[in-house]
């Protein structure tokens, strides 16, 4: 054996140990993924949510959005308001994976609801800022690990994940739990180690957001159109809701045009009487009291579109 080969083989022992350690990390992550964050727990509960929705009685309403939905929408209050306006009975469910935008919501809806034929009558799509734009960030890791099956891969690669590196990330995330959850581990670890990490992370995120805003492409809403068309073909009425933030953001009028052009409803709820910057717990999320005020408001606003859907459904079932 040449000295070159023996040195190579000797170093392979080092490589083997590294691979073993990585395999160990993968095993740990597979066993303990649900303990990583309440967001993972929530995502793992989405199949149960869709099942509950399918088995629910009355008008089935599904809220989809990000953590703004978790913090800002109280289903009981919405139900109460709808009931008060004669829209009853209703069955409300919410899906709110953290830090998500339309690419995720599209896939969540398609994977867990359209794909399983567990459809709501009304889908309330809650967004803020640029979350509906085609150029809003796509996270191939989340798409790969949580919101797709192998059969959906070709479609996702064609529609959402275009460049080689994103596709590689998408495939790796679909295969590896440790890879898919790397950012969650990072956040948890730094939160435990670094003092005041949450506040400083917000500052850093704000800076990165500003940077990424400068790189956004022209405003377009093809994905939103596809989303609305998919919902329409499944007989689901969509209500698109602009959520409030402490600082009122500008809203592109194209969104309303696209939504209404698809025959769906649009509600601009960025500013609500009784909600001010003080009603928020942080830069994004409503605090409990603000959430209650907002949910009462949204319940009243939704009565119209939900009522229409309900009467249309009654009409359809009577005709049948």
């Amino acid at each position, binding site marked *: 054996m*040449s000295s070159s080969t023996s040195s190579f083989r000797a*170093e392979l022992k080092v490589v083997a140990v590294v691979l073993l350690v990585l395999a160990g*990390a993968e095993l740990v992550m597979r066993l303990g993924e649900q303990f990583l964050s309440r967001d993972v727990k929530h995502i793992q509960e989405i199949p149960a949510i869709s099942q509950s929705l399918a088995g629910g009685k009355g008008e089935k309403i599904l809220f989809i959005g990000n953590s703004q939905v978790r913090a800002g929408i109280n289903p009981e209050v919405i139900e109460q308001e709808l009931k008060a306006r004669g829209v009853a009975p209703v069955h409300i469910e919410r899906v709110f994976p953290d830090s998500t935008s339309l690419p995720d919501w599209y896939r969540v809806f398609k994977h867990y609801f359209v794909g399983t034929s567990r459809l709501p009558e009304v889908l309330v799509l809650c967004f803020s800022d640029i979350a509906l734009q085609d150029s809003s960030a796509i996270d191939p890791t989340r798409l790969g690990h949580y919101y797709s099956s192998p059969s959906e891969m070709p479609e996702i690669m064609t529609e959402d994940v275009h460049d080689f590196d994103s596709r590689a990330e998408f495939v790796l995330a679909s295969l590896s739990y440790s890879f898919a959850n790397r950012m969650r*581990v*990072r956040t948890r670890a730094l939160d435990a180690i670094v*003092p005041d990490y949450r506040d400083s992370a917000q500052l850093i995120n704000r800076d990165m957001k500003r940077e990424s805003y400068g790189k956004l492409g022209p405003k377009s809403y093809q994905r939103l159109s596809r989303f609305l068309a998919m919902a329409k073909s499944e007989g689901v009425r969509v209500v698109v809701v602009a959520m409030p933030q402490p600082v009122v953001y500008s809203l592109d009028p194209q969104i309303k045009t696209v939504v209404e052009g698809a025959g769906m409803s649009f509600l601009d709820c960025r500013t609500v009487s009784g909600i001010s910057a003080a009603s928020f717990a942080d830069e994004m999320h409503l605090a409990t009291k603000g959430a209650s005020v907002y949910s009462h408001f949204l319940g009243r606003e939704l009565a119209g579109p939900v009522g229409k859907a309900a009467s249309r459904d009654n009409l359809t079932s009577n005709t049948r």
Partner: protein
Amino acid sequence: MLFNSYIFWIFFAIVFVLYRRLGHRGQNYMLLAASYIFYGYWDWRFLFLMLFSTVVDYTAALLIAGTGSRLKRKSVLVTSIVVQLSLLGLFKYYGFFSQQLASLFGFVGIPVYVPVLKFLLPVGISFYTFQTMSYMLDVYRDEYPAEKSFVNFALFVSFFPHLVAGPLVRATKLLPQIATPRVRRPNDFREGLYYIAIGLFKKVFVGDNLAAVANSIFHANPHSLTGLECIAGIYAFAFQIYCDFSGYSSIAQGLAKWLNIDLTTNFNLPYFATSPTEFWRRWHISLSTWFRDYLYIPLLKRGPQPATRARLFASLIVVMLLSGLWHGAAWTFVLWGLYHGVLLIGYRLISRKKSGVPEPQSTLSLASFLVRVVVMFQLVCLGWLLFRAESISQVGIMLSRIVLDFHWTPFVSSAFAMILFFAGPLVIYEFWVERHQDLLSLIRIDWRVRAAIYSYCALMLLFFPPPVSNVFIYFQF
């Protein structure tokens, strides 16, 4: 193609497999094609620029070698250098200098219209321009024969591991390795693995993670920052730029090792320098030695010998100003160069040794060594403020905040904790290497310890990806 991208590693795997199956000539053809694909992946249009630059210097070197006339040799050399520097000047400096010229005329009341031409800076143009210039100068000085094979020369210019961000490798080192068949050496895999592992760790785990901290400070309104926040931002940037650039150089060295080619070591633990002179012997070594050999020494040699102190200092300032300008067309870079020039002169003035050569570390006590290292690090960091700031006024405001405002804020705690978490282990490791006086200490110890360290690196790379993947800073130079 970035070294920290998936596409690059697929590309390299294909190159590596082909490389192992080909003979020497085939390897060179394949490496040349691979290098052009690698470069064209950014913007194929700039391939023509690199090809043009290659053809010019290949021909010019042959012309120089083929004539005995001193005048003709000199005129060919000057033509080649003018062509190369014109391309560099056009793409990199035209906007800056035309703007300064217009401002100057405007200041004295003569409005001047200077056409605005916005060029996309070709990646790595400063690197390959300097590399070919060194080749031309070596041929002119008869220190290296003109390369007759165009393929060999084109590969020397474009060899992909170091093409876009160095290290700058001299013809005397790289061309013989290209021209003669390469042999597999016993330690190539081990050394390559070490360079790549440590390079990725530096770039992705330390550099990119601390980039987020540094950027958030440097993008903020400087008036809103406290002095300690400014200091945290500068420290974060100090580690970001070191790990980003030395990480790239290290990966380049590792890739080349796996192709049985040696590149120049570009960094030698620069933050353990105890003096400005030593810092420049440890930081971006290939550029420092380039300026030393092709500019500083020739400047000293002109005029009466030995060179006077004034001439020595003037040469240092010229070299450092140009070194600053090499990094970018902005006054902040020029100031950064000037600052280091002043540091070097200051050190020579207070140093007891005329040569400015620092005392060997072995003669220093550990405490004295550490004190010097810490002091030198602060001086280097002050330079990084000039380097990173987006304007001179930002430098001024941040300096005034540092001097006047000592408020400790939650962000300061977080930023320092993050610097400690991301850069601390590297500093400890490099201190250990420094004490061993051997950059490859890690590959000479028990394999189990190395496996443990690599496992740590792999876990950190897996679980602490940067919030945003960053391109290598030195690509813009």
